[in-house]
């Protein structure tokens, strides 16, 4: 761990003021950043602890929810309104990490956590374009079981590891940002960038810009939702494939659908192609499978993760079929 200064922000304005300085980094629960500091992957000169900023979870005027970015993952998962209106979000959060980590991790930090690609972590022995652009990528021909089949590039095939973000993507969550030059609100699905030629640039955040809150729109009327995480052991493992699905069915036809994938892409993957294929279509397993196939038609599996294509298709089909069955 490289030495750094630490300060604790008392309000957003001062946080952003310090955060705008070169080599500064915001610190949430530290469940990922501290690991990265220890591995010397992150070497900030100063850390600004933002866990003292808003962690409030409050209803919005239009029936949604505003979640302070400093809210702990556990607090969000256990919140009364989340349990009643967004149970899928709870399922996704408790599917992630361990209870101890969820007790520490903040919502903002969860969104900005970095990939767990082994080659990214191996600072001494492996090449990684995300760590050092131009080095090359040792994952492409190495161990890539956990890596991306959608949205990757020849420079990087790492996945975004969050479970919570997959649910947030399906929920049409908005991200509230505060930067040195002002505030803005963007959809969560637009926050993360695909790697293209510069995998080190992972989000659209401007220098010093801070996530202050997440906003959930009101739940989809008539929608049933769930989150399914498929992994190599029953807990404490990253998703090989995860699916967040919201489905509304009327008279056997899909009247509303939101679908997002985790474990398959460098960002929480909103499956718009599948959604488009499903809207108005009959709510049958065959349709669901076909829609998933459409989403994965352009998947580019690697040497060690070809199974993810069929796994994602099957998981979507089974999950959506069960959601549709709940409504018949």
């Amino acid at each position, binding site marked *: *761990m*490289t*030495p750094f200064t630490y300060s604790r922000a008392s309000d957003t304005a001062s946080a952003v003021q310090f955060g705008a300085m070169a080599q500064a980094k915001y610190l949430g629960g530290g469940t990922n950043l501290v690991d990265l500091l*220890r591995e*010397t992957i992150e070497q900030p000169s100063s850390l600004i602890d933002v866990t003292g900023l808003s962690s409030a979870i409050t209803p919005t005027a239009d029936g949604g929810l505003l979640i302070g970015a400093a809210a702990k993952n556990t607090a969000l998962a256990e919140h009364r309104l989340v349990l009643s209106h967004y149970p899928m979000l709870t399922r996704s959060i408790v599917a992630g990490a361990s209870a101890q980590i969820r007790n520490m991790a903040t919502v903002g930090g969860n969104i900005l956590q970095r990939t*767990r690609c*082994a*080659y990214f972590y*191996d600072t*001494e*022995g*492996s090449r990684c374009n995300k760590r050092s652009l131009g080095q090359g990528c*040792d994952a492409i*021909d*190495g*161990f890539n079981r956990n890596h991306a089949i959608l949205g990757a590039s020849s420079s990087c095939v790492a996945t975004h590891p969050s479970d919570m973000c997959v649910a947030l993507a399906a929920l049409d969550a908005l991200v509230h940002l505060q930067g040195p030059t002002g505030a803005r609100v963007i959809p969560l699905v637009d926050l993360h960038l695909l790697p293209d030629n510069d995998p080190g640039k992972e989000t659209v955040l401007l220098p010093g810009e801070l996530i202050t809150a997440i906003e959930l729109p009101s739940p989809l009327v008539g929608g049933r939702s769930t989150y399914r995480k*498929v*992994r*190599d*052991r*029953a*807990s*404490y*493992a990253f998703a*090989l494939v995860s699916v967040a699905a919201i489905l509304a069915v009327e008279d056997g036809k899909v009247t509303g659908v939101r679908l997002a994938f985790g474990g398959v892409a460098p960002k929480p993957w909103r499956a718009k192609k599948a959604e488009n294929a499903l809207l108005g279509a009959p709510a049958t397993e065959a349709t669901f499978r076909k829609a998933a196939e459409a989403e994965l038609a352009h998947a580019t599996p690697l040497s060690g993760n070809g*199974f993810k294509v*069929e*796994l994602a298709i*099957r*998981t979507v089909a*089974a999950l959506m079929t069960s959601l549709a069955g709940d409504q018949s």
Partner: protein
Amino acid sequence: MSAVSNAGHPGTAVGLAANQWGQGDNPDPLIRHKHGLVGTSVSRIDGPLKVQGKATFAAEFVKEGLTYAALAFSTIAKGRIETLDTSAAEAAPGVVLVMTYKNAPRMKPMPLFMTAEKAAGGDNLPIMQDDRVHWNGQPIALVLAETQEQADFASSLVHATFKAEPSVTNFKEAKRRGTKTGEFGGGPLKLEIGDAEAALTQVPVSIDAQYSTPRHSHNAIEPHAATVAWDGDALLVHDASQAVVHTAWSLSSVFGIDESQVHVTSPYVGGGFGSKTLWQHQVLGAAASKLAGRPVRITLSREGVYRMVGGRSQTEQRVALGADKDGRLKAIIHTGVVAMSHQNALPEPFILATRGAYAADAFKLHVEVAQMDMLANTFMRAPGEAVGTFGLECALDELADKLGIDPVEIRILNEPDKHPTEGKPFSSRNIVEAWRTGAQRFGWAKRNAKPGSVRQGEWLIGMGCATGTYPYYRMPGGAARITLRKDGHARVEIAAHEMGMGTATAHSQVTADRLGLPLDQVTFGYGDSKMPGAVLAGGSQQSASIGAAIVAAQHALFAQLLILAGNASPLAGLRPEEVGGFNGGLVALADLARSESYASIMGRAGRDEIVVQEDAPPPMELQNWSMHSYGAMFCEARVNAVTGETRISRFLGSFDCGRILNAKTAASQFRGGIIMGLGLALMEETQFDERNGRIMNPSLAEYHVPAHMDVPEIDVIWNDIPDPHTPMGAHGIGEIGITGTAAAVANAVFNATGKRVRDLPLTLDKLM
């Protein structure tokens, strides 16, 4: 936990026990001793200390002027260090020194395990003596600093460049370059009886399949650590060790000092599993301490354990079984190749269990070695049997399926009446009973023999079974000292080890029963190389070794007591064989009215204490008998028909392991072994990047071992039938649990799905 016929009752009844164990002629009298402490559930005496944080582990010893070590590792598999820039590290805050091959003291390589009686080294390479790199992850620099954090940071500033040389890090390439027959225990891992290949072609039913198991890394909860200090030429090492005397002797050889100048202690060990022997870190810690003139604490990071402590090597096994129409085996072929480093002596001996498992006319067993440039592989819980039983027991399941015979019945059908390849009689083999009892308790009769026929929602459910087996060993070197005080307190000392399995507790129970003392009047000293004996906590042999040593010491103690008792005692004229420990004293076995308390004998003789020390007799029992522990393993697995995920819903181990010394700690040993077997079956795999020999998942986040949710209720039972040819009637139980488990899982998965997965781990992609 439950013992089917678990003898003994809880409590502190002080019973009668004689003092002889004649290795076969005269069974240990303790076997007949049914109402003492042996066999009861006594909680671990170290438990309260551990939960209170009062048990001092290797990395917790406090020393004046202590410095902290951190290591930097190589990133190539073979070659030379071209440049090694330590200037930034040396200039970092708190750094005391940086040690590399340029300034390390001259040392000899470690004596390689199994090459000498007390050799404990995991490899036999020069340690920081030159610029050579032998594996990816070899330590190339050690940073010593005032705090661990300073050392860790400074080690990240060590900058090395390497000149790589051609290396073999690809298993296929290693095999292409040629294999040789593996050697284990002084002989080749090769055995042929009859013409098994020919027999295979002549039988009506056969199976011929390839199985493979991956590399595994050691993940004891306590990473390897040592606190080291020199006093002149005397070296003190507080180690995490399963071989204190071996380690002391081996370190003396490395540093060219007398064995008596090295003192190794290891009061508590957070798991060993074969890994807590001598690796380069203790040597480097001692070398740096010498260089700095200050004590050193070296604690490996979790990554450090993966980089420099060996694990289990990968295997590729062919198992071919030929049987008649009734299912009787005619031919057993178990051959294959394992990867091995150049610098160690353990070819993963996967045929060991096959030698004695089943009766057959012809055998062909052979382990070949393909050498690779990699970290030395080493012992890991049931080396050989853990992965060998996977191949053998899966193949037998395949054969049973082909024949339409119940998998339990085919095992019973092929039960040998003597050791099938050595011809020796079994000392105690009651596996058939364990099968019957286990099958009934597990509800095996409810199994549907047709694969893929039981389903609940998305989940396919199946049952499978397999035989577990592990040898009884007793190595030479056992010795014990007993100090008996006039107030009836006995202290046993032996250079043995407590790695969490309950050794100190179980042997306190045994000693209390032998001497006729209550448990709280016995203390068990261990974990110190200055104590008697050279007892390896490995090969599941420690309990037998300790037991035999205590028998010998007890005999000497009774002899002394009888001399001291003299003619005024009711015991006058009796020989040590004719008395037993009873109710705080000695009693004539033939006449319980003749007795005298220890206090009385010693009081009359004016003695406050008696100290005796004796060596255990050589392990002659192994010359005459085939001696093994056995387990009948039953698994119920659920496989998700959509995703291929496997979850174990029930497991039962039914054990035939001689007499059980402590029901509670034994159950934990059995369960722990089974849990490790579930990991072996479902998830454990060291990701060894074959491009450069680098381990890519050196952390417990990415190297999967079972999490709580992966472990179902595990039922363990045992028949508690004493082996008349072993001390206490006991067999080792530390390793048996992992054997057979992976095959039971794979066979249950087959029964659930109809899919045979022959390469571990059984990940979901193989079942989709």
